[in-house]
Structure formats: structure tokens, C-alpha cells
């Protein structure tokens, strides 16, 4: 994969926190590239730096050193408004705790990122929303509030919301961690289907081997460093090392 074809690339990225007077290297120098349309798993044990890397890719955290490039844009040095714009145009988020807005219905939650941009939605966007809600199987629950939904249903709303602006990349931080295994598998299956259907790049963190096995591209982290970077071939269980 060439640098130009990568939708996400990290180059010698480091993230250091101060814990009192002690420096903590959450990410100690990570480089990798991800291709468009990939279904990417960032795996590793707790504290390995998965969430920190997802935050930096999602432009909600900045590296202490190195460079993060999103769809050709280097994120360092962008203003708050430019970063917000980049996030709303290019990125969609799925959170472990679903993070739906409690006062909005299913439909309103999905509509929310669209309204943030323009204040109103077009006819095409309305049809797109309806399709997304249908895709995640919540047409009959569209007017329900989050507290009226199960965990799986909430995560499906979060997936539809993440797709509402038709982003190129969707970041999912341990999307199945708060779900039972059956629901978790259903969610991964849904994400996979959308990935194939819409060509959206999915990058998700997990430590569940079953979910890792679903990925095209697996990046394993250990102590803030890339321990394994594999382009997986799920069909025969084999794989090859990625650059």
C-alpha cells in the first residue's frame, strides 16, 4: 500500500502523559497505514494504547510526537474549528457505552450530526437516514428514546448515527464490550455488512479474539508499540505482514 492510497497513516506517533512527575508513554512510537474500505482491528490488552491511538485517529487527542494523516490531511496544527469540521466530514464514532443523546429519539439521534452541519436536512438525507435505520433494523423503534432500547439496539443506533454523514472512516472503541456475546456478534456482522455495502473504513479496538478474526487488517499493540501488523485472510485463516 502506498502512502497516497492510505486513508489513515501514523508515522512515529508518540503520546506521553504526565502522571505526577512520572512520564507515562501510552504510545511509544507507532507507524502504520490503513487502506480505504478496510475492516481494521486494533487489538491488545488493556493499557496497550488502543484507545489512545483511536483518539488520535479521531482527532480528539493530539500526538506528543509524530504525525497522523487522515484522508490526506495532517491533523497537527489544525484549529479547533478545522478539527471539528474534519471530524464531522470524515469520521464517524461508535462508543463502547453507546453515548446516545438521551433526550433525542432514535431518528433524532441519527439526524443529530446532519443538523450540526447545516441546521436542516435535505430530502436525500432524510431518505438516507430512513435507509440507515432500516439497515440497522430499528424502523419500528425510530421514535423511541434510548432508555427504551436494549444495549444492542442502542449500539445499532450509534452505528446508524456514525454513518449519517456518510463518513469515510468509522472509529469504534470496543463496540461490543458492553454487549452479550450473541449481540456483540450481531453488531460486528452489521458493521461488516455496512463495510462491504458502503465501502466505509471501519477501525475498531477490541481484545475479543472472535472479533479480531473478522478483521481484514489486524494491528496488535503491546506496551504502546505495534507488536503485529497483519493483513488477515479470513477465508483460509492465514495472513501476511502489512507495512
Amino acid at each position, binding site marked *: 500500500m502506498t502512502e497516497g492510497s492510505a486513508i489513515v497513516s501514523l508515522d512515529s506517533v508518540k503520546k506521553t502523559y504526565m502522571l505526577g512527575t512520572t512520564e507515562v508513554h501510552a504510545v511509544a512510537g507507532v507507524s502504520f497505514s490503513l487502506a480505504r474500505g478496510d475492516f481494521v482491528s486494533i487489538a491488545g490488552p488493556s493499557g496497550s494504547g488502543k*484507545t489512545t491511538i*483511536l*483518539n488520535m485517529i*479521531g482527532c*480528539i*487527542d493530539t500526538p506528543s510526537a509524530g504525525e497522523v494523516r487522515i484522508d490526506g490531511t495532517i491533523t497537527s496544527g489544525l484549529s*479547533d*474549528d478545522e478539527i*471539528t469540521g474534519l*471530524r*464531522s466530514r470524515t469520521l*464517524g*464514532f461508535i*462508543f*463502547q*457505552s453507546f*453515548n446516545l*443523546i*438521551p*433526550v*433525542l429519539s432514535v431518528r433524532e439521534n441519527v439526524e*443529530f*450530526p446532519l*443538523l*450540526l*452541519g447545516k*441546521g436542516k436536512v435535505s430530502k436525500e438525507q432524510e431518505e438516507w437516514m430512513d435507509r440507515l435505520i432500516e439497515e440497522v433494523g430499528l424502523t419500528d423503534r425510530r421514535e423511541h428514546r434510548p432508555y427504551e432500547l436494549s444495549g444492542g439496539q442502542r449500539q445499532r443506533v450509534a452505528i446508524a*448515527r*456514525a454513518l449519517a*454523514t456518510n463518513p469515510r472512516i468509522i472509529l469504534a*472503541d470496543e463496540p461490543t464490550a458492553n454487549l452479550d456475546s450473541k449481540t456483540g456478534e450481531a453488531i460486528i456482522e452489521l458493521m461488516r455488512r455496512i463495510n462491504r455495502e458502503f465501502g466505509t473504513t471501519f477501525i475498531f479496538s477490541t481484545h475479543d479474539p472472535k472479533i479480531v478474526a473478522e478483521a481484514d487488517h489486524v494491528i496488535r499493540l503491546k506496551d504502546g508499540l505495534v507488536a503485529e501488523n497483519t493483513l488477515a485472510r479470513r477465508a483460509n485463516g492465514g495472513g501476511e505482514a502489512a507495512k
Partner: protein
Amino acid sequence: MTRLVLKMAARNVLEHRRKSVTVGVIVAAAACLFTLGFSVLDTASEGIRKEFRNRITGDLYVTAKTPKPLSAFSWKDMNSLTEPVPRLEGHAKIKSYVEGLAGVESATSRAVGVVQVTSEGGTGKPGAAMLMGVDTNDYEKAFPDGIRVAGGASWTKGSGGLIVSDMAAGTVGREASKPGSSLTLSSMGMGSAIREAEVLGVLEPEDSNPLLSLLSYVDIDTLRHLLGYYLEDGGETGGTPGAKVAPAAAPNEDDLFSVDTVTVGDPAGGSGGDVAKLLSGLADREPPKIDTDAWQYIVVKVKKGASVDGVRATIEGFIKARGLDATVYGWLDGAGQIASTVLSIKDIFNYIAALIALVALLIIMNALVISVTERTAEIGTMRAIGGTRNFVKELIVTETVLLSSVAGVAGMALGAAGVWLTRLIGFRTDNFIFKILFGGEVFRPDLSLPGCAITLAAVVAIGVVASLYPTKIALRVSPSVAMQRD
């Protein structure tokens, strides 16, 4: 965006009940208190303003420029009451100018003096009265509600005579001061003149306005005699028909007992010397001539809708331009201690209201900070999925202003209901102070619309200010908070 913000703000207000109830109750209670307080105090102060304006002070009054301030009756310093109030020099010019001003409803002149009142024949105790000398031709036209006669009558046009205060009548004796009888008026602290005046009527008691209870009214010529306002060069004699001069041609004690006129008789057995001659000679004397332009005050009422300050400035400009030794006061200067007390109470209430607003603001701010802290994940999520800082700011401010406005209007409605109920029932009091403040025994407040406007503005301002710090906290929330585990 605005519709989204309004929708979310309204739902947040309904969803976060603990915060909404805490904030709502505080704002509603403050708004209710403000509405009641402003209505009661505005009614009291407006009542007092109207009472004074319509009955005695007018909107403005012009007097001579003096080192000590003058009220509308006398000196502001009650210890100086017996000191004569100086004449207003240039009265005719000023009055003529004032009467010609477009914004002036009426301008009337008067003078005051403190006199001793005794009954004819010396029965009853002598009493003191603050005697207001007025032009009986036009005074009641300018102040139709100024003189409230309980027994007897007021002047017929241009006639003279005395309308005695209830207080003075009580001291001198009811029988002696009944209409038709005569009372002897002796000047105090302004020479030693004595006049006799026919009582035309007795004023109503003035329980709710102690200053007015001091006032008795007389035709200006009688007072001019008592004040010694005579023409030095023997001009035309003025005079009001019916104003008795008694004893005839014996205007004052100085005339009677001066060394030039009193001759002591022969102590060895002479008759009384020249006293009888002196007294008989008095009958032949020319009565002194009254100065008909001698006044102390011009009292001005301004037309409804005209600017009192504007008229005042115009009159002051005229006085300055002509180099006249005069000054202009407002009604409040003339009203004395009572009106000042009400306005001081109003100031105290304003301070208390400001303090309540500050306390409410701190409590609301605290509740909002807790609410924002509880919602960091939600705010972080909004930021992560494309919400700008402005969006978050708008949301928090709209939420607070919406809540404080709704609660404020509810509180105001409650306060208005309280005002209405008090008005319906009437707040009765026997307390002397309250009677003065409320202008009588029964107080019926009016809803103060300016008070409501101030209250509404205050609750909205409280909402906006209270939301500033929580908004600052909310804006510090990083989108990465959304990624944190519960």
C-alpha cells in the same frame, strides 16, 4: 441549529428534574417576591407622590435661593420652622414666564408663616399653626384636592378667611374654632403682628400625612399682614374682601408699644397720659399698604405627558439668564421625611432584591455546574461527532434561560395573583407608620408593570450570568471524554 438547540434545551429542562426543580423554585420564589415587593413599594411611592403632588407640592416649586433648603411648607429642617421664609424676589416675572410654558398645567403662588392661634376672648389653649396664605381666586383650581374641609366651607371666589387645621381646632377648642367664629392669629418669629380671621371651615384630620395636619389655610392678604409684607413707598393697597383687619388700623404690637408712640403718664397722679390719645388716634391712621406681589412660592404642576425635568431645566435656565435669586425644587424635596422614608425603604428593598438575586445566582450556578459535570460524556459525544464549542455554549445558555424564564414568569404570575388578592381583600392596618406609607388604613396595591419588566429582565439576566461558569466548564470538556469507560 436554533430549532435543534431549543428542542434539546426544552427536553433537558424536563428530563433533568432535580436540577430544574431546584433552579425553578429559586427563580420562581425570587420572581414572586420581586413582583410583590415592587408592586407594594411602587404603589406606596406612587401614592405618596400623587398625594403630595396633587395636594401640596405640585411637581415643582420655585422659592428664593437660601443657604438652607426649603420644603414646600417651610424649611426642611424642622427646627427652623419659626424662621420666616424669605420672599421670592422677581415673583411676577417668574410666574408670568412659567405660566406661558407649554408643559405647564398650572402655576399658583403662596406664602407660609407659623402663627399662634387663640380664640376670641381667650378661651381655650393657644395653639400653633403653620399658616399657608393662598390666592383664594385660583388656589383650589390648581389644587382641587388640596383642601379637604370636614366642617364648614371653603372660600367663595376671591373671599378671605381662615380654614383651620383639625389639629389647631382641637387645641384652641372645637367650639371656639367652629365656622363663623373668629380666631386671633399672632405672628411668631416674623415680627409681632396680630390679625383676626373668620373661620370658614375646619379641615379633615390628616392621620396618614402628619405634615399636612400642621397646615391651616388663609387668604394671602391676612398672611401678608402677619408677615409684614407692606409697600415701603405707599403703593396701592391690596386686600382681599372679607379679610378682617382687627383691631382696625392697629397692625402690630411694635406700632402700639414703640418708644415713639407710647407716653408714660404722670406717676404723681396723672391720668394714664397719652395712651388713650394714642389709641383714639389710631383710628384715624391710614392702614399700611400690602405688597400684592409678595409671595414666597410658585408651585407648578406639569401637564400629563410633559417632562418634569424638562420644565424644571427651562425654568432654571430662565432664572439663570435673568440673574434672579431663585431656585427650583422637585416634589420630593418638598414632601419632607415621609416620601424620603418610602424611597429609602424602596432602596433597601432594591438592595435586598439584589442580594436575593446574587444568592439565587450562586445556587443556580452550583446546580448547573453539577448538571454539566454529570453530563460530560454527553457533551464530549456532541463535540466528538461534530458539535462546535458554540453549539455547546448555545445549548447550556438556552437551557438555563429557558428554565429561568419559565420559572420567572410562573413566579411573576404567582406574585401578580398575590397582588390581586391583596387588592381584593385590602391590607388593613392600625399601625401609624404603615398608615403613612400606605396612605390610609387600607392598602390596595396595584401590579407594577415596570416592576414586572425589571423582574423578567432580572430572571433572564440571572439565567444568562448563572450559565456563564457552567458553560466554561462544559467547553473545557474534551471530546475524548466520550471515549472514557463508564
